[in-house]
């Protein structure tokens, strides 16, 4: 169920501290929240942690939400902020304990997908996925949130501005910057092949 489709009555019941309503709410929106967080952090363990933290906050602070109709925006904002602070916490921990740093690889989830295709393709896809995930993780929090919300979640610029509590200009700027960085780090996948470029140049000269 999309966040927008959550029944208002359910949110109101949750606000009153109804635990079964809360469980119902999580059952309905849990998958969406999981996907939304994963799109930003690109790591299952981190997603798990952030989702847990978000749900605690959701239960604690939902009674303070004055306009129930704004629930989707409110929860999106909470997720974005949690992702920011999680990354922040991670970077601090990493800075403080570089000696003990161990490379943790992405859990191998591909084998769980029965439709993943032949092994060579799976391997290639895994490599691409890892590179893209890395590039996304490298982005500053605001740029990452902006580009993910825009390109993946399909939020409008105005909605992102509302979620990130900044101006529409700032959102556009962040998206632009993120795109620039991603194009650079993912040039092997995003840029056109030299042969195609050459072809284009030739046609340009010819024209």
């Amino acid at each position, binding site marked *: 169920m999309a966040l927008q489709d959550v029944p208002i009555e359910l949110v109101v019941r949750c606000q009153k501290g109804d635990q079964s309503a809360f469980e119902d709410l999580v059952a309905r929106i849990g*998958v969406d929240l999981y996907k939304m967080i994963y799109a930003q952090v690109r790591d299952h363990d981190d997603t798990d942690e952030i989702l847990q933290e978000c*749900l605690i906050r959701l239960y604690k*602070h939902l009674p303070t939400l004055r306009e129930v109709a704004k629930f989707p925006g409110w929860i999106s904002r909470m997720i974005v902020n949690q992702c920011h602070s999680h990354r922040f*916490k991670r970077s*601090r921990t990493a800075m403080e304990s570089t000696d003990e740093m161990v490379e943790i690889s992405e859990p191998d989830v591909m084998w*769980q997908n029965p439709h*993943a295709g032949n092994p060579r393709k799976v391997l290639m896809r895994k490599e691409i996925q890892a590179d893209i995930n890395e590039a996304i993780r490298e982005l500053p929090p605001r740029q990452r949130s902006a580009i993910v919300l825009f390109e993946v979640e399909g939020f409008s610029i105005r909605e992102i501005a509302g979620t990130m*509590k900044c101006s529409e200009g700032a959102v556009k700027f962040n998206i632009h910057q993120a*795109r620039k960085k991603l194009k650079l780090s993912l040039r092997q996948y995003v840029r056109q092949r030299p042969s195609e470029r050459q072809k*284009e140049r030739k046609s340009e000269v010819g024209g």
Partner: protein
Amino acid sequence: MRCTKCQKIYDEAAQGLLSENLQRKVRDHLAECPVCSVFWQENEALRFALRETARPAAVPDAPYFARLARRAVAQAQVETTEVNGERSEARGWLDAVGGLLTGLRFGMAGLVQATALLAVGVVAGLGIARGLKSGQIEKTKVADIVTSMPTEQAALPPLVGPTFSPTLPDTGSSMMAKGAVAENEGDLITKVDETPRPAVDPATLVQTWQKTLALLDKMGPSDEVERLRQIQQVSRQVQASTILNRLQDLKLQLVRTGQTDYIPDVHRIEEVFSRLAAASRDTQASEFAHLDTYQKAEEALIRKRYDEAMRLFKMVVIQAPGTYLAARATHQMGNISFERFRDYKNALIDYDLCLNEYPRHFLSDAIQEQIHERVDLITQNSTDSYGPLRTFAQAEATSQPAAALGLYSTLLKQYPQSPLIEPTIGAMTRIVRQVADDTTAVNTVLDVLDQFQDQNPGHPLALDAQLGLADVTNFCVRNRSQAVLEYTKILEKAKDPEKIKTVQERLRSLEKAR
């Protein structure tokens, strides 16, 4: 259609917001412009890649979410119980005042009295501010405060004399105090030119506030309240945040002077005035609904638990967006990013929010000035991923004079156009005076300053470098004749009256020594 326009409207096009006419123009342009065509194709490819990889290959099943929900409820309940327990212990002596205020909260009579009390607070704040300025604390007796009440509320004097640091206690905070070297953690490098301290001890101010509160506590429906009613018109014109800004400044001073033991007292006072402010016409109770969280964040900050402080400040911003406390929390987040984490990009975003997203009166003038200075520094030192700022901050934070000098030297060599050059030259000169016996350090500084002059002949700070050289020659090398020669050269070129005065003083003292 121009290329810039074609590329600029990509986001609108992606959202399907373009008119048919514009869509056609874009299509036509893309057909004939290879640059824009590549730009669009790359963006599309990026979007495809992001979307394709954004979704997890496997998503947990329903029991997982049910388990998570139950765990979250249990955890939230535990946290709420803990917080309530802490709150009940912390009330203490303020219970009486709190009870009185809660009673006054509703109804017209309550509003009048609360507003009147707020006026006392404002006037007391003004009294203290004026006392601070003149170096004396005024009496806090309510009647005296009322009679001495100023008529122009707008002309509030600043609470602090010198440039003060943000809430964070040490090194990085002094970064912006031009001409002052940071006192670092080991105190190995000390200030030569001591920054003046506030005229009044902040602890005395806290005690004064406490007396005022005690007076408020004793006041009932007496003549005093009737007299205060007369000034409610004035108090209405004063933003509630004015008085709270005064308290904020007071906290900053306490941190700066290392008297953080008084912070809990100020927090209690702040709570009372927040409640008073919440009852006045210009404010709403929701403005201060998250004061507890904010205060906890400040306490975490003082204990140097920056992650926790950041988390709590963020909580305030999320839960009370657009409010007075959110403005202050955003400012603190900017400070943490700037000073502690040296994450200048995020600091810039937070500072930008402070200046543009919140009403001006939410942050005191002194804080706003500091933010402007920092924003300038960040934007002017953005080369090499904020290299100059990072180097400067590292130099300030290090407790080893040799390491600090090395970092300052790097800054001078690599970023001669940075606005941090002036404090860098000052810092180098001062540090080397502390380690005058270390000939290697002295020679290094002489070389670096000399090189800076040679390589940047038209630099506006070349004369400062020359003055630094002369000072090192005078105080460290103790070559007086050479120093006189250097000072005389500077005197010939200098136009800045302060510099001329400094050099003349140095020459006079050299003559006396002869």
